């Protein structure tokens, strides 16, 4: 009895090795990616311990533990809480304005019955999505800056406002510049997913609605919107999951010292205290701030994904 099961176990083990041998090429195919994530994703995670240490040049392992000193200091750091507040606030503003607009735009594009013109428009709308914020920041700063065209026009319409031009130096205006320019860049790209969802709606529903005497508005409200509402809710949940991402590329390339107070987000804050500030902030402290952000991010994204899955939809991210 025992001898028998032992033999069975041995056979099973041999089978595993044979199976692994059968998949040998596949293992070789996935190997580069595994090496890649080990070196560039998991090794940095090992470095997270720096958040609980005082950084020494000797290396991460050799640095001494410091009893959560960085986390205790975080609340006293004068720029940390404003950066955290700005991140959430700017994200919230982006959701408020930037989230509904692509839906609205997609509905309008869907109501545009000239296919060729529609394609031209979509080409234009999606173009900025593929440009970097470095480049767009250059264009934007020029347009809105003190020598820009917007100010020239403002000078004619309202000389007083034109004189005190501070679009890029007033924190409150700057936040809206961030939100609206991001919408300008991404709205066209955002419509694609909704248009795809619209195209999945059964055409016979529209035909039936026409027979029933529905007008255009009624068709939108009763067929198109219900048809894409699940896509809208998925996108919304996932977008909320990203609330800690304030848009590093955009902010970093457009902000200036006068707007640090209102425009600084966690990511730019981490960059600044690590590489720009001369007063010598411990790299361990930057790591701690990064960890703080990543943990919140992780929880938000995980719950967003679980929530979407509970809606019966498959979502990886």
């Amino acid at each position: 009895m025992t001898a028998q099961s032992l033999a069975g176990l041995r056979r099973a083990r041999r089978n595993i090795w044979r199976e692994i041998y059968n998949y040998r090429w596949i293992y070789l195919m996935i190997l580069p990616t595994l090496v890649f994530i080990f070196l560039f994703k998991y090794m940095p995670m090992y470095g997270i311990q720096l958040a609980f240490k005082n950084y020494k040049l000797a290396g991460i392992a050799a640095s001494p533990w410091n009893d959560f000193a960085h986390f205790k200091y975080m609340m006293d750091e004068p720029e940390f809480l404003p950066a955290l507040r700005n991140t959430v606030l700017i994200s919230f503003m982006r959701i408020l304005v930037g989230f509904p607009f692509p839906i609205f735009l997609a509905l309008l594009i869907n109501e545009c019955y000239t296919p060729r013109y529609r394609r031209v428009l979509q080409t234009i709308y999606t173009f900025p999505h593929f440009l970097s914020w470095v480049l767009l920041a250059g264009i934007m700063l020029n347009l809105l800056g003190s020598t820009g065209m917007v100010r020239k026009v403002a000078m004619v319409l309202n000389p007083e406002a034109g004189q005190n031009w501070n679009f890029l130096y007033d924190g409150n205006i700057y936040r809206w510049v961030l939100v609206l320019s991001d919408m300008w860049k991404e709205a066209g790209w955002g419509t694609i997913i909704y248009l795809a969802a619209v195209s999945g709606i059964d055409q016979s529903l529209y035909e039936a609605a026409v027979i029933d005497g529905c007008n255009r508005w009624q068709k939108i409200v009763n067929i198109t919107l219900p048809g894409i509402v699940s896509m809208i809710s998925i996108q919304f949940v996932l977008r909320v999951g990203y609330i800690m991402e304030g848009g590093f590329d955009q902010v970093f390339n457009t902000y200036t010292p006068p707007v640090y107070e209102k425009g600084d987000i966690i990511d730019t804050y981490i960059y600044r205290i690590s590489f720009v500030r001369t007063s010598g902030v411990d790299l361990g402290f930057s790591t701690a701030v990064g960890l703080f952000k990543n943990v919140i991010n992780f929880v938000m994204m995980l719950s967003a994904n679980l929530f979407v899955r509970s809606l019966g939809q498959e979502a990886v991210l």
Partner: protein
Amino acid sequence: MAQTAINNKALTDKVARKNRIRHFGVVDFFILLFLSLWGLLILYPFYNAVLVSIVPNTIYQRSQGFMLIPPAITWDSYAFTFKNSLIFTGYRTTVIVTVLGTAYNMAMTVLCGYALTKTGMPGIKVMRFALIFTMWFSGGLIPYYLQIKDLHLTDSLLVMVLPMGVNLMYLLIISDNFRSIPPSLEESAKIDGANDWTILLRILLPLCLPLLATFTLYYAVERWNEWYHAMLFIKTSSKWPLQNVLRTIINDVNMLATMNVPGQARPDVQGDSIKMSSIIVSMLPMMCLYPFLQRYFLSGLTLGAVKE
């Protein structure tokens, strides 16, 4: 029976006519107006950039109000831009990084995407989880920075290639599409003696060409727009990619002017016009290619999102 069929036909024709050949109403007019205005709003900043780059600086500075048509044209700022050696080296670096990086990205993504379809492989679930986990959690800037330094990638062009191996999002979409190809195809190839490489290269990839084109373009755009790693790790300015050259020009055009044309007073070639001409020059490839490749660019999102 036949009668109802005819009636149905007449009815659907009527509906179709109502749907398609509707007359152009007031609502249509306002929809087109709004869409056109949004299109103009997207285009205007680019047009303005061109305008600033070609209008002589002295005229531009003195002009009042809205300018739509350039009152005078000069190509001086472009001449200046092309003389700038950083633009040249920037272009070179960016092209090298884009070609190398895209090839590296696609090779890894396709191989790994195929491997992920093998759900019966021992250990694949763990590997898949290990991959997906990196989308949700990361070490953060400083540990990443120190790791790259430990790998001695600093100030090497490879720092703009190697750390950007696979985009997990693209990987999962590509893998899903591989999985949607009937397994019987693979089985019959196996019976004919094909190994995994042959199946991937000779059967799967040719079936997925449009998909591959789309993600090649996405990767190429990402590599082309690279600036972050260069900012962190590349100190030698002749190794900067285009984006970082642009950053320098945008942030400090005066420094650049003194660097490149010592002692030359050119009142018409200044600040804004140089910035804008550099921007135009660096986005030229994208501007020329995008309208023709748009079909591939736009198909990627829907590949992942809408499943039957």
